[in-house]
């Protein structure tokens, strides 16, 4: 199969399906062959569902012949392996669930299926979507198609690797401190963490109740818009799910950025940022200015305290895992176990103070967002690190440019904005007001149309 098909967008595939130039079954067979060839190197998939994929593809062909206009019809996707899938193994990247077969789908899995997608399989995740996957783990770690010696980011590591290598057209991720945006940044992809409450978490394994988000990754911003459209909306099964009506995420993409105000929070987000990321970021701002956006500096002083998010994460994660950690600790990877256990060492007062800091960050960010429509920052301070560096357990959890938006719950998109001298992708992060995913996607799409970073392919 040509790269043209492997890297086709949702719109391109849909057009070719409807012109009968190619069929979902042909695309599915071709991708299954590509997965067979490349996945032994990349380790993106933990479970391949070839029979199910062909069944979905045949159903999509019938629907296409019927004239069904759903844009996701016949689109090949895969799910991060913390999304429950009925009748299909869901491991959570853990030995605890290595052979678990759920008897129901998560809400998002069901919604994408109803939209007519083709399920190619389940994608490897860091253990319970937490931290880094260390050697000796139950499942091998996914590798970055741009450089196999570097991490693809995580915890949606398989999602990032599979998309960058042209193995799928769309994938789910989950994002507690950057697990959608990190793989998007490190693998040269687009990924959106929607507003807290916008996409259902029902049937998705929990890491931290107040920080967890679900969302899509894809190779273009427009593809993210299509995938989010089919994912978003109220779900009574998720207590955090919002009743705010879902907007049209596709229509705003055509509007450009003329008149939009983009704020750049100059404190916190630029500490420790590599020179080449700083340069790529400033060039991205210049591009947005030329497209008609107004760019101005803003300050959110309380962001300096954002690293306290880690207290909330580990305390909530320990609360979720406590029983298994006490009764079956040997089934956790060693490093993940010790890090989860650290949540038992956070006092009630410290957890409460971290939530008070969070309230302060939310209030100041809301205030700033009265003056601007979108915030722009570098997604990560550095490009993807080598496995040798990432596997140093003493490295800890570095300061994150992504976690602040898990604290605030604001919709946040990551998209490519350049490449390092060593050929690794660099990424721009855009955040909007609550439930204004359309604005964030609009800015990202305008930038993407004006640049060609998203069209580069990794050397796999």
């Amino acid at each position, binding site marked *: 199969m040509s790269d043209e098909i492997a890297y086709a967008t949702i719109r391109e595939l849909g057009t070719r399906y409807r012109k009968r130039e190619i069929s979902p079954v042909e695309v599915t067979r071709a991708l299954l062959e590509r997965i067979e060839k490349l996945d032994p190197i990349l380790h993106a998939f933990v479970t391949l569902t070839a029979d199910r994929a062909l069944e979905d593809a045949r159903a999509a062909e019938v629907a296409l012949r019927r004239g069904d206009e759903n844009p996701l019809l016949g689109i090949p996707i895969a799910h991060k392996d913390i999304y429950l899938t009925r009748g299909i193994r869901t491991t959570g990247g853990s030995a605890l669930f290595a052979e678990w077969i759920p008897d129901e789908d998560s809400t998002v899995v069901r919604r994408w299926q109803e939209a007519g997608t083709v399920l190619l399989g389940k994608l490897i995740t860091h253990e319970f979507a937490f931290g880094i996957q260390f050697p000796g783990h139950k499942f091998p770690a996914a590798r970055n198609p741009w450089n196999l010696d570097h991490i693809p980011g995580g915890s949606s590591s398989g999602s990032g690797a599979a998309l960058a290598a042209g193995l799928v057209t769309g994938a789910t991720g989950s994002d507690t401190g950057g697990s959608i945006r990190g793989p998007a940044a490190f693998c040269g992809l687009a990924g959106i963490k929607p507003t807290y409450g916008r996409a259902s978490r029902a049937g998705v394994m929990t890491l931290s109740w107040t920080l967890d988000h679900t969302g899509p990754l894809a190779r273009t911003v427009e593809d993210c818009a299509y995938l989010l459209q089919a994912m978003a909306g109220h779900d009574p099964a998720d207590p955090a799910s919002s*009743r705010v009506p879902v907007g049209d995420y596709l229509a705003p993409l055509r509007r450009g950025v003329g008149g939009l105000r983009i704020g750049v929070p100059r404190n916190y987000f630029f500490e420790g940022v590599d020179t080449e990321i700083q340069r790529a970021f400033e060039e991205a701002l210049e591009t947005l200015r030329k497209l008609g956006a107004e760019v101005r500096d803003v300050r959110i002083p309380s962001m*300096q*305290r*954002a*690293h*306290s998010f*880690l*207290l909330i994460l*580990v305390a909530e994660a320990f609360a979720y895992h406590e029983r298994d*950690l*006490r009764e079956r600790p040997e089934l956790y990877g*060693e*490093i993940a176990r*010790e*890090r989860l*256990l*650290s949540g*038992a*060492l*956070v006092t009630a007062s*410290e957890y*409460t*103070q*971290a*939530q*008070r*800091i*969070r*309230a*302060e960050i939310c*209030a100041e960010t809301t205030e700033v967002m009265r003056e601007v429509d979108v915030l722009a920052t570098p997604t990560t301070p550095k490009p993807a690190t080598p496995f040798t560096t990432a596997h140093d*357990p*003493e490295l*800890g*959890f570095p300061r994150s440019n992504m976690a602040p938006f898990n604290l605030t719950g604001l919709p946040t998109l990551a998209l490519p904005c350049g490449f390092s001298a060593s050929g690794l992708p660099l990424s721009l992060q855009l955040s909007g007001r609550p439930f204004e995913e359309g604005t964030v996607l609009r800015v990202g799409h305008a930038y993407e149309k004006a640049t060609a970073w998203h069209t580069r392919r990794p050397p796999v």
Partner: protein
Amino acid sequence: MADPHELTIEELRERIRVAGITIAENRLAMVRKLLTDALAPVRALDSRTIRTVEPAVKFVPEAEGGRRE
């Protein structure tokens, strides 16, 4: 001079004892670093000046049955 916000190894051991958990001796440094980093903003905070986290529950009167958010 020691950082006043740093979690000492003695304090870490005491927290482990109180929590009733076991952390491997060779991972104490890792856990200590994780907690020291995460606690730094809280330890640098004057808790008298920071915002409250109220309200814990919020009622939306226009929603059916005064739904809680």
